[in-house]
Protein backbone atom coordinates (compact mmCIF):
# COMPACT_ATOMS: atom_id res chain seq x y z
CA UNK A 1 0.00 0.00 0.00
CA UNK A 2 1.38 3.41 -0.92
CA UNK A 3 1.95 6.07 1.69
CA UNK A 4 -0.84 8.22 0.25
CA UNK A 5 -3.36 5.36 0.27
CA UNK A 6 -2.43 4.54 3.87
CA UNK A 7 -2.84 8.18 4.88
CA UNK A 8 -6.25 8.33 3.19
CA UNK A 9 -7.26 5.16 5.00
CA UNK A 10 -6.14 6.59 8.33
CA UNK A 11 -8.29 9.66 7.78
CA UNK A 12 -11.43 7.66 7.01
CA UNK A 13 -12.69 7.31 10.62
CA UNK A 14 -12.20 11.01 11.39
CA UNK A 15 -13.92 11.95 8.11
CA UNK A 16 -16.81 9.60 8.90
CA UNK A 17 -17.18 11.05 12.41
CA UNK A 18 -17.11 14.67 11.24
CA UNK A 19 -19.33 13.86 8.24
CA UNK A 20 -21.94 12.23 10.48
CA UNK A 21 -21.86 15.25 12.80
CA UNK A 22 -22.30 17.62 9.84
CA UNK A 23 -25.18 15.48 8.50
CA UNK A 24 -26.87 15.48 11.93
CA UNK A 25 -26.63 19.29 12.11
CA UNK A 26 -27.93 19.64 8.54
CA UNK A 27 -30.83 17.27 9.31
CA UNK A 28 -31.61 19.33 12.44
CA UNK A 29 -31.62 22.53 10.38
CA UNK A 30 -33.97 21.00 7.79
CA UNK A 31 -36.50 19.48 10.20
CA UNK A 32 -36.71 22.74 12.15
CA UNK A 33 -37.13 24.83 9.00
CA UNK A 34 -39.83 22.43 7.79
CA UNK A 35 -41.63 22.98 11.08
CA UNK A 36 -41.37 19.34 12.16
CA UNK A 37 -39.56 20.45 15.31
CA UNK A 38 -40.52 23.63 17.14
CA UNK A 39 -37.72 26.21 16.86
CA UNK A 40 -38.65 27.52 20.31
CA UNK A 41 -37.61 24.14 21.73
CA UNK A 42 -34.60 23.33 19.56
CA UNK A 43 -32.82 26.31 17.96
CA UNK A 44 -31.49 26.29 14.42
CA UNK A 45 -27.84 25.22 14.21
CA UNK A 46 -27.30 28.25 11.95
CA UNK A 47 -28.36 30.45 14.91
CA UNK A 48 -26.08 28.69 17.38
CA UNK A 49 -22.91 29.56 15.40
CA UNK A 50 -23.43 33.35 15.61
CA UNK A 51 -24.54 32.93 19.24
CA UNK A 52 -21.03 31.65 20.01
CA UNK A 53 -19.59 35.00 18.88
CA UNK A 54 -22.36 36.90 20.69
CA UNK A 55 -21.76 35.24 24.07
CA UNK A 56 -18.01 35.80 23.72
CA UNK A 57 -18.51 39.51 23.00
CA UNK A 58 -21.55 40.36 25.16
CA UNK A 59 -21.47 37.89 28.03
CA UNK A 60 -17.81 38.24 29.03
CA UNK A 61 -17.07 34.58 28.46
CA UNK A 62 -13.35 35.13 28.97
CA UNK A 63 -13.91 36.67 32.41
CA UNK A 64 -16.29 33.87 33.37
CA UNK A 65 -13.87 31.26 32.06
CA UNK A 66 -11.08 32.79 34.15
CA UNK A 67 -13.35 32.75 37.20
CA UNK A 68 -14.17 29.05 36.75
CA UNK A 69 -10.50 28.32 36.00
CA UNK A 70 -9.48 30.22 39.15
CA UNK A 71 -11.93 28.19 41.25
CA UNK A 72 -10.63 24.97 39.66
CA UNK A 73 -7.05 26.06 40.32
CA UNK A 74 -7.81 26.82 43.98
CA UNK A 75 -9.53 23.44 44.37
CA UNK A 76 -6.58 21.80 42.56
CA UNK A 77 -4.04 23.38 44.92
CA UNK A 78 -6.06 22.27 47.93
CA UNK A 79 -6.34 18.80 46.43
CA UNK A 80 -2.59 18.57 45.86
CA UNK A 81 -1.83 19.83 49.35
CA UNK A 82 -4.39 17.86 51.37
CA UNK A 83 -4.85 14.84 49.10
CA UNK A 84 -1.18 14.02 48.50
CA UNK A 85 -0.20 14.75 52.11
CA UNK A 86 -3.00 12.53 53.42
CA UNK A 87 -1.97 9.79 50.99
CA UNK A 88 1.64 9.98 52.19
CA UNK A 89 0.61 9.86 55.85
CA UNK A 90 -1.67 6.88 55.24
CA UNK A 91 1.10 5.10 53.32
CA UNK A 92 3.63 5.64 56.10
CA UNK A 93 1.31 4.71 58.99
CA UNK A 94 0.03 1.30 58.01
CA UNK A 95 -2.46 1.10 60.85
CA UNK A 96 -4.16 4.32 59.76
CA UNK A 97 -4.16 3.10 56.17
CA UNK A 98 -5.89 -0.15 57.14
CA UNK A 99 -8.41 1.78 59.21
CA UNK A 100 -9.29 4.52 56.72
CA UNK A 101 -8.63 3.28 53.17
CA UNK A 102 -11.97 1.47 52.83
CA UNK A 103 -13.77 4.51 54.23
CA UNK A 104 -12.13 6.76 51.67
CA UNK A 105 -13.03 4.29 48.91
CA UNK A 106 -16.64 4.30 50.14
CA UNK A 107 -16.64 8.12 50.06
CA UNK A 108 -15.39 8.00 46.46
CA UNK A 109 -18.67 6.30 45.52
CA UNK A 110 -20.84 8.66 47.60
CA UNK A 111 -22.75 11.48 45.85
CA UNK A 112 -20.78 14.19 47.68
CA UNK A 113 -21.92 16.95 45.29
CA UNK A 114 -25.42 16.59 46.74
CA UNK A 115 -24.08 18.17 49.91
CA UNK A 116 -23.98 21.54 48.15
CA UNK A 117 -26.96 22.95 50.13
CA UNK A 118 -25.00 22.11 53.28
CA UNK A 119 -21.92 23.91 51.95
CA UNK A 120 -24.15 26.87 51.10
CA UNK A 121 -25.25 27.04 54.72
CA UNK A 122 -21.68 26.76 56.04
CA UNK A 123 -19.78 28.98 53.56
CA UNK A 124 -22.54 31.14 52.09
CA UNK A 125 -23.39 31.71 48.43
CA UNK A 126 -19.91 32.59 47.24
CA UNK A 127 -16.84 31.21 45.47
CA UNK A 128 -15.69 29.47 48.67
CA UNK A 129 -18.68 27.10 48.52
CA UNK A 130 -17.86 26.25 44.89
CA UNK A 131 -14.15 25.68 45.59
CA UNK A 132 -14.83 23.57 48.69
CA UNK A 133 -17.44 21.54 46.85
CA UNK A 134 -15.00 20.80 44.03
CA UNK A 135 -12.31 19.96 46.56
CA UNK A 136 -14.46 17.65 48.71
CA UNK A 137 -15.88 15.72 45.75
CA UNK A 138 -12.43 15.18 44.21
CA UNK A 139 -10.40 14.34 47.32
CA UNK A 140 -10.85 10.52 47.52
CA UNK A 141 -9.20 9.63 44.16
CA UNK A 142 -6.15 11.81 44.95
CA UNK A 143 -5.60 10.11 48.32
CA UNK A 144 -6.20 6.61 46.94
CA UNK A 145 -3.89 7.08 43.94
CA UNK A 146 -1.13 8.55 46.13
CA UNK A 147 -1.25 5.46 48.36
CA UNK A 148 -1.33 3.22 45.27
CA UNK A 149 1.65 4.96 43.68
CA UNK A 150 3.80 4.82 46.80
CA UNK A 151 2.88 1.18 47.47
CA UNK A 152 3.79 0.19 43.91
CA UNK A 153 7.43 1.31 44.29
CA UNK A 154 9.64 -1.64 43.38
CA UNK A 155 11.13 -3.35 46.39
CA UNK A 156 14.54 -3.52 44.71
CA UNK A 157 14.70 0.28 44.41
CA UNK A 158 13.95 0.69 48.11
CA UNK A 159 16.59 -1.94 48.93
CA UNK A 160 19.18 -0.11 46.81
CA UNK A 161 18.40 3.06 48.76
CA UNK A 162 18.81 1.21 52.05
CA UNK A 163 22.11 -0.30 50.81
CA UNK A 164 23.33 3.26 50.26
CA UNK A 165 22.26 4.02 53.82
CA UNK A 166 19.82 6.75 52.80
CA UNK A 167 17.95 8.44 55.60
CA UNK A 168 14.14 8.07 55.72
CA UNK A 169 13.79 11.54 54.20
CA UNK A 170 16.27 10.77 51.40
CA UNK A 171 14.60 7.42 50.76
CA UNK A 172 11.30 9.24 50.37
CA UNK A 173 12.50 12.15 48.22
CA UNK A 174 14.99 10.22 46.05
CA UNK A 175 13.17 6.91 45.53
CA UNK A 176 9.56 6.67 46.73
CA UNK A 177 8.26 10.04 45.50
CA UNK A 178 9.85 9.98 41.99
CA UNK A 179 8.62 6.42 41.49
CA UNK A 180 5.07 7.28 42.62
CA UNK A 181 4.84 10.61 40.78
CA UNK A 182 3.17 9.30 37.58
CA UNK A 183 0.45 7.50 39.57
CA UNK A 184 0.03 10.49 41.87
CA UNK A 185 -0.48 12.61 38.76
CA UNK A 186 -3.17 10.18 37.54
CA UNK A 187 -4.96 10.74 40.85
CA UNK A 188 -4.50 14.49 40.59
CA UNK A 189 -5.81 14.46 37.04
CA UNK A 190 -8.87 12.44 38.06
CA UNK A 191 -9.35 14.80 40.98
CA UNK A 192 -9.09 17.88 38.77
CA UNK A 193 -11.63 16.43 36.31
CA UNK A 194 -14.05 15.67 39.18
CA UNK A 195 -13.39 19.12 40.63
CA UNK A 196 -14.09 20.87 37.31
CA UNK A 197 -17.29 18.86 36.77
CA UNK A 198 -18.51 19.73 40.25
CA UNK A 199 -17.44 23.37 40.08
CA UNK A 200 -19.31 24.03 36.83
CA UNK A 201 -22.26 21.98 38.11
CA UNK A 202 -22.51 23.88 41.41
CA UNK A 203 -22.08 27.22 39.60
CA UNK A 204 -25.08 26.26 37.49
CA UNK A 205 -27.12 25.02 40.46
CA UNK A 206 -26.55 27.99 42.77
CA UNK A 207 -26.46 30.51 39.92
CA UNK A 208 -23.14 31.98 40.98
CA UNK A 209 -19.65 32.22 39.49
CA UNK A 210 -18.38 31.62 35.96
CA UNK A 211 -19.44 29.38 33.09
CA UNK A 212 -22.09 27.40 34.99
CA UNK A 213 -23.88 30.60 35.94
CA UNK A 214 -23.73 31.80 32.34
CA UNK A 215 -25.69 28.73 31.18
CA UNK A 216 -28.25 29.24 33.94
CA UNK A 217 -28.58 32.97 33.10
CA UNK A 218 -29.08 32.35 29.40
CA UNK A 219 -31.59 29.53 30.04
CA UNK A 220 -33.57 31.77 32.41
CA UNK A 221 -33.60 34.52 29.74
CA UNK A 222 -34.91 31.88 27.32
CA UNK A 223 -32.01 32.67 24.99
CA UNK A 224 -31.96 29.22 23.38
CA UNK A 225 -29.15 29.70 20.83
CA UNK A 226 -27.08 31.37 23.56
CA UNK A 227 -27.77 28.50 25.99
CA UNK A 228 -26.72 25.92 23.40
CA UNK A 229 -23.61 27.95 22.53
CA UNK A 230 -22.66 28.32 26.21
CA UNK A 231 -23.12 24.57 26.76
CA UNK A 232 -20.98 23.98 23.66
CA UNK A 233 -18.33 26.29 25.10
CA UNK A 234 -18.26 24.40 28.42
CA UNK A 235 -18.03 21.08 26.55
CA UNK A 236 -15.13 22.52 24.53
CA UNK A 237 -13.34 23.69 27.69
CA UNK A 238 -13.84 20.23 29.27
CA UNK A 239 -12.47 18.51 26.16
CA UNK A 240 -9.38 20.75 26.01
CA UNK A 241 -8.75 20.31 29.74
CA UNK A 242 -9.20 16.53 29.51
CA UNK A 243 -6.93 16.31 26.46
CA UNK A 244 -4.13 18.46 27.90
CA UNK A 245 -4.04 16.56 31.20
CA UNK A 246 -4.14 13.27 29.29
CA UNK A 247 -1.11 14.32 27.23
CA UNK A 248 0.79 15.25 30.40
CA UNK A 249 -0.14 11.88 31.90
CA UNK A 250 1.15 10.06 28.77
CA UNK A 251 4.36 12.08 28.96
CA UNK A 252 4.79 11.06 32.59
CA UNK A 253 3.86 7.42 31.90
CA UNK A 254 5.25 6.69 28.45
CA UNK A 255 4.30 2.99 28.65
CA UNK A 256 0.61 3.57 29.48
Amino acid at each position, binding site marked *: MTMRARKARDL*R*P*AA*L*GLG*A*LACALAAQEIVIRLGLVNRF*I*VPLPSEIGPAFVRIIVQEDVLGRFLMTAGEALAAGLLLALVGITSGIVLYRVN*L*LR*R*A*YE*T*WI*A*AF*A*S*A*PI*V*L*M*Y*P*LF*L*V*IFGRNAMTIVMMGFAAALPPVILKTIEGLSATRRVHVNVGRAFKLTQRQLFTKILLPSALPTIFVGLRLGL*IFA*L*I*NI*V*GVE*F*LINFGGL*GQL*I*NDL*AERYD*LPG*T*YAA*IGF*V*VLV*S*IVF*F*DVTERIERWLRPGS
Partner: protein
Amino acid sequence: MAEARVVGQSAAGGRRPRIDPVHGIRIVTVLLILVGWELLARSGMLFRDVVPSLVSIGGAIGVLLADADYYRHLGWTAFEILVALAIGGAAGLVAGLILGGSRLLGRAFEPYLYYLGPTPKIIFFPIMIMWFGVGPASKIALGTISCFFPIALSTAAGMRMMDPVLVRVGRSFRARRRQMVTKIYLPALRQPIMNGVRLGFGIAVIGTLLAETKLSNRGIGFLIINSYTTFDMPRMYALLILLFVLAIGANALVGRLAGGDHPR
Protein backbone atom coordinates in the same frame (compact mmCIF):
# COMPACT_ATOMS: atom_id res chain seq x y z
CA MET B 1 -13.92 -8.85 58.08
CA ALA B 2 -10.96 -10.42 59.84
CA GLU B 3 -9.61 -7.07 61.00
CA ALA B 4 -12.85 -6.07 62.58
CA ARG B 5 -13.04 -9.11 64.79
CA VAL B 6 -12.47 -8.92 68.49
CA VAL B 7 -9.74 -11.47 68.87
CA GLY B 8 -9.01 -13.62 71.89
CA GLN B 9 -5.52 -13.10 73.17
CA SER B 10 -3.73 -14.92 75.93
CA ALA B 11 -2.14 -12.35 78.18
CA ALA B 12 -0.35 -13.13 81.45
CA GLY B 13 -1.65 -16.66 81.36
CA GLY B 14 -5.32 -15.72 81.01
CA ARG B 15 -7.45 -15.23 77.89
CA ARG B 16 -8.41 -11.59 77.71
CA PRO B 17 -10.41 -10.34 74.71
CA ARG B 18 -8.53 -7.59 72.86
CA ILE B 19 -9.89 -5.21 70.24
CA ASP B 20 -8.14 -5.26 66.89
CA PRO B 21 -6.20 -1.92 66.65
CA VAL B 22 -7.72 -1.11 63.25
CA HIS B 23 -11.18 -1.57 64.70
CA GLY B 24 -10.12 0.49 67.70
CA ILE B 25 -8.95 3.39 65.53
CA ARG B 26 -12.23 3.36 63.67
CA ILE B 27 -14.27 3.40 66.88
CA VAL B 28 -12.14 6.20 68.33
CA THR B 29 -12.45 8.21 65.09
CA VAL B 30 -16.22 7.89 65.05
CA LEU B 31 -16.41 8.84 68.73
CA LEU B 32 -14.11 11.85 68.20
CA ILE B 33 -16.24 13.06 65.29
CA LEU B 34 -19.45 12.66 67.26
CA VAL B 35 -18.09 14.35 70.39
CA GLY B 36 -16.47 17.15 68.36
CA TRP B 37 -19.70 17.68 66.48
CA GLU B 38 -21.78 17.87 69.65
CA LEU B 39 -19.31 20.29 71.28
CA LEU B 40 -19.36 22.49 68.18
CA ALA B 41 -23.16 22.41 68.12
CA ARG B 42 -23.35 23.49 71.75
CA SER B 43 -20.50 26.02 71.60
CA GLY B 44 -22.48 28.75 69.90
CA MET B 45 -19.51 29.49 67.62
CA LEU B 46 -21.65 29.00 64.51
CA PHE B 47 -25.11 30.30 63.72
CA ARG B 48 -27.84 28.32 65.43
CA ASP B 49 -28.72 25.10 63.59
CA VAL B 50 -25.86 25.33 61.06
CA VAL B 51 -24.41 22.44 63.05
CA PRO B 52 -27.44 20.97 64.83
CA SER B 53 -26.99 18.71 67.83
CA LEU B 54 -26.76 14.97 67.27
CA VAL B 55 -29.97 14.52 69.24
CA SER B 56 -31.93 16.70 66.84
CA ILE B 57 -30.35 14.99 63.79
CA GLY B 58 -31.15 11.56 65.26
CA GLY B 59 -34.69 12.74 65.98
CA ALA B 60 -35.02 14.00 62.39
CA ILE B 61 -33.83 10.64 61.05
CA GLY B 62 -36.42 8.89 63.21
CA VAL B 63 -39.18 11.25 62.00
CA LEU B 64 -38.15 10.72 58.38
CA LEU B 65 -38.06 6.95 58.68
CA ALA B 66 -41.54 6.95 60.22
CA ASP B 67 -42.93 9.34 57.59
CA ALA B 68 -44.83 7.77 54.71
CA ASP B 69 -44.19 10.90 52.64
CA TYR B 70 -40.43 10.22 52.76
CA TYR B 71 -40.95 6.79 51.21
CA ARG B 72 -43.18 8.29 48.53
CA HIS B 73 -40.40 10.72 47.55
CA LEU B 74 -37.81 7.95 47.80
CA GLY B 75 -40.00 5.84 45.51
CA TRP B 76 -40.09 8.65 42.93
CA THR B 77 -36.33 9.08 42.98
CA ALA B 78 -35.75 5.32 42.79
CA PHE B 79 -38.21 5.11 39.89
CA GLU B 80 -36.45 7.93 37.99
CA ILE B 81 -33.01 6.41 38.58
CA LEU B 82 -34.08 2.90 37.56
CA VAL B 83 -35.82 4.09 34.37
CA ALA B 84 -32.77 6.25 33.55
CA LEU B 85 -30.48 3.28 34.14
CA ALA B 86 -32.67 1.01 32.00
CA ILE B 87 -32.83 3.45 29.05
CA GLY B 88 -29.24 4.73 29.33
CA GLY B 89 -27.96 1.21 30.00
CA ALA B 90 -29.74 -0.31 26.99
CA ALA B 91 -28.62 2.55 24.72
CA GLY B 92 -25.07 2.38 26.07
CA LEU B 93 -24.98 -1.38 25.61
CA VAL B 94 -26.12 -1.18 21.98
CA ALA B 95 -23.72 1.70 21.23
CA GLY B 96 -20.85 -0.16 22.93
CA LEU B 97 -21.55 -3.37 21.01
CA ILE B 98 -21.66 -1.50 17.68
CA LEU B 99 -18.60 0.67 18.33
CA GLY B 100 -16.59 -2.16 19.85
CA GLY B 101 -17.57 -4.55 17.05
CA SER B 102 -16.48 -2.30 14.18
CA ARG B 103 -12.98 -0.88 14.00
CA LEU B 104 -14.05 1.89 11.62
CA LEU B 105 -17.14 2.97 13.61
CA GLY B 106 -15.21 2.73 16.87
CA ARG B 107 -12.44 4.99 15.63
CA ALA B 108 -14.97 7.38 14.06
CA PHE B 109 -17.36 7.86 16.98
CA GLU B 110 -15.71 6.65 20.17
CA PRO B 111 -13.58 9.82 20.60
CA TYR B 112 -16.83 11.81 20.85
CA LEU B 113 -18.05 9.57 23.67
CA TYR B 114 -14.63 9.56 25.29
CA TYR B 115 -14.44 13.33 25.41
CA LEU B 116 -18.12 13.99 26.18
CA GLY B 117 -18.06 11.46 29.05
CA PRO B 118 -16.26 13.67 31.59
CA THR B 119 -18.26 16.86 30.90
CA PRO B 120 -20.62 18.01 33.67
CA LYS B 121 -23.99 16.58 32.60
CA ILE B 122 -26.07 18.88 34.79
CA ILE B 123 -25.41 21.74 32.34
CA PHE B 124 -27.64 19.88 29.84
CA PHE B 125 -30.57 20.20 32.24
CA PRO B 126 -32.01 23.37 30.63
CA ILE B 127 -32.15 21.49 27.32
CA MET B 128 -33.80 18.50 29.00
CA ILE B 129 -36.43 20.82 30.51
CA MET B 130 -37.15 22.28 27.04
CA TRP B 131 -37.46 18.84 25.50
CA PHE B 132 -39.21 16.88 28.24
CA GLY B 133 -40.85 19.43 30.54
CA VAL B 134 -40.44 20.07 34.24
CA GLY B 135 -41.80 16.68 35.39
CA PRO B 136 -39.96 13.42 36.06
CA ALA B 137 -39.15 12.93 32.34
CA SER B 138 -36.45 15.63 32.35
CA LYS B 139 -34.81 14.05 35.44
CA ILE B 140 -34.94 10.63 33.80
CA ALA B 141 -33.41 12.14 30.66
CA LEU B 142 -30.54 13.68 32.63
CA GLY B 143 -29.96 10.39 34.46
CA THR B 144 -30.03 8.62 31.10
CA ILE B 145 -27.35 10.76 29.47
CA SER B 146 -25.32 10.56 32.70
CA CYS B 147 -25.14 6.75 32.71
CA PHE B 148 -24.99 6.25 28.93
CA PHE B 149 -21.31 7.19 28.54
CA PRO B 150 -19.61 4.88 31.08
CA ILE B 151 -21.72 1.91 29.97
CA ALA B 152 -21.07 2.52 26.25
CA LEU B 153 -17.33 3.06 26.75
CA SER B 154 -16.94 0.07 29.06
CA THR B 155 -18.87 -2.23 26.69
CA ALA B 156 -16.87 -1.03 23.65
CA ALA B 157 -13.57 -1.60 25.49
CA GLY B 158 -14.80 -5.04 26.59
CA MET B 159 -15.70 -5.94 22.99
CA ARG B 160 -12.20 -5.12 21.84
CA MET B 161 -10.61 -7.15 24.63
CA MET B 162 -12.86 -10.17 24.08
CA ASP B 163 -11.12 -13.46 23.30
CA PRO B 164 -11.35 -13.81 19.46
CA VAL B 165 -11.59 -17.59 19.85
CA LEU B 166 -15.09 -17.15 21.30
CA VAL B 167 -16.18 -15.19 18.23
CA ARG B 168 -14.62 -17.77 15.88
CA VAL B 169 -16.42 -20.58 17.71
CA GLY B 170 -19.73 -18.75 17.29
CA ARG B 171 -19.07 -18.18 13.60
CA SER B 172 -17.98 -21.78 13.00
CA PHE B 173 -21.34 -22.85 14.47
CA ARG B 174 -22.94 -20.45 11.96
CA ALA B 175 -24.60 -18.47 14.74
CA ARG B 176 -26.87 -15.67 13.55
CA ARG B 177 -26.28 -12.07 14.61
CA ARG B 178 -28.86 -12.31 17.39
CA GLN B 179 -27.39 -15.61 18.58
CA MET B 180 -23.90 -14.09 18.51
CA VAL B 181 -25.12 -11.25 20.73
CA THR B 182 -27.05 -13.42 23.21
CA LYS B 183 -24.79 -16.50 23.28
CA ILE B 184 -21.30 -15.08 22.76
CA TYR B 185 -20.99 -11.31 23.23
CA LEU B 186 -23.22 -10.70 26.27
CA PRO B 187 -21.94 -13.65 28.39
CA ALA B 188 -18.32 -12.80 27.51
CA LEU B 189 -18.89 -9.13 28.29
CA ARG B 190 -20.54 -9.64 31.68
CA GLN B 191 -17.66 -8.13 33.65
CA PRO B 192 -17.07 -4.93 31.59
CA ILE B 193 -20.82 -4.37 31.26
CA MET B 194 -21.37 -4.73 35.00
CA ASN B 195 -18.43 -2.41 35.68
CA GLY B 196 -20.00 0.14 33.33
CA VAL B 197 -23.39 -0.30 35.01
CA ARG B 198 -21.76 0.23 38.41
CA LEU B 199 -20.11 3.44 37.28
CA GLY B 200 -23.22 4.52 35.38
CA PHE B 201 -25.46 3.84 38.35
CA GLY B 202 -23.43 6.16 40.58
CA ILE B 203 -23.48 8.93 37.98
CA ALA B 204 -27.19 8.42 37.26
CA VAL B 205 -27.94 8.84 40.99
CA ILE B 206 -26.01 12.12 41.06
CA GLY B 207 -27.52 13.40 37.78
CA THR B 208 -31.10 12.58 38.77
CA LEU B 209 -30.83 13.98 42.30
CA LEU B 210 -29.07 17.18 41.19
CA ALA B 211 -31.82 17.73 38.63
CA GLU B 212 -34.38 17.26 41.42
CA THR B 213 -32.64 19.89 43.54
CA LYS B 214 -32.71 22.34 40.62
CA LEU B 215 -36.35 22.06 39.57
CA SER B 216 -38.80 19.54 40.97
CA ASN B 217 -41.63 19.10 43.42
CA ARG B 218 -40.92 15.49 44.32
CA GLY B 219 -38.04 13.16 45.04
CA ILE B 220 -35.23 13.14 47.60
CA GLY B 221 -33.40 15.98 45.81
CA PHE B 222 -36.50 18.13 46.20
CA LEU B 223 -36.75 17.25 49.90
CA ILE B 224 -33.09 18.26 50.43
CA ILE B 225 -33.41 21.63 48.70
CA ASN B 226 -36.78 22.20 50.37
CA SER B 227 -35.16 21.65 53.79
CA TYR B 228 -32.46 24.14 52.77
CA THR B 229 -34.91 26.83 51.68
CA THR B 230 -36.97 26.43 54.87
CA PHE B 231 -33.72 26.26 56.92
CA ASP B 232 -34.75 22.96 58.51
CA MET B 233 -31.15 21.90 59.11
CA PRO B 234 -31.69 18.74 61.20
CA ARG B 235 -33.98 17.41 58.47
CA MET B 236 -31.45 18.30 55.76
CA TYR B 237 -28.63 16.53 57.61
CA ALA B 238 -30.92 13.55 58.19
CA LEU B 239 -31.81 13.39 54.48
CA LEU B 240 -28.14 13.61 53.45
CA ILE B 241 -27.09 10.89 55.92
CA LEU B 242 -29.86 8.54 54.76
CA LEU B 243 -29.04 9.31 51.12
CA PHE B 244 -25.33 8.57 51.64
CA VAL B 245 -26.12 5.30 53.40
CA LEU B 246 -28.47 4.28 50.59
CA ALA B 247 -26.09 5.36 47.79
CA ILE B 248 -23.02 3.64 49.28
CA GLY B 249 -25.10 0.52 50.03
CA ALA B 250 -26.57 0.40 46.52
CA ASN B 251 -23.11 0.92 44.99
CA ALA B 252 -21.71 -1.93 47.09
CA LEU B 253 -24.64 -4.13 46.03
CA VAL B 254 -24.12 -3.40 42.33
CA GLY B 255 -20.38 -3.98 42.85
CA ARG B 256 -21.10 -7.37 44.41
CA LEU B 257 -23.43 -8.26 41.53
CA ALA B 258 -20.62 -7.25 39.17
CA GLY B 259 -18.48 -9.84 40.93
CA GLY B 260 -15.57 -7.41 41.04
CA ASP B 261 -13.20 -6.50 43.85
CA HIS B 262 -14.15 -4.64 46.97
CA PRO B 263 -16.64 -1.86 46.26
CA ARG B 264 -15.13 1.48 45.38
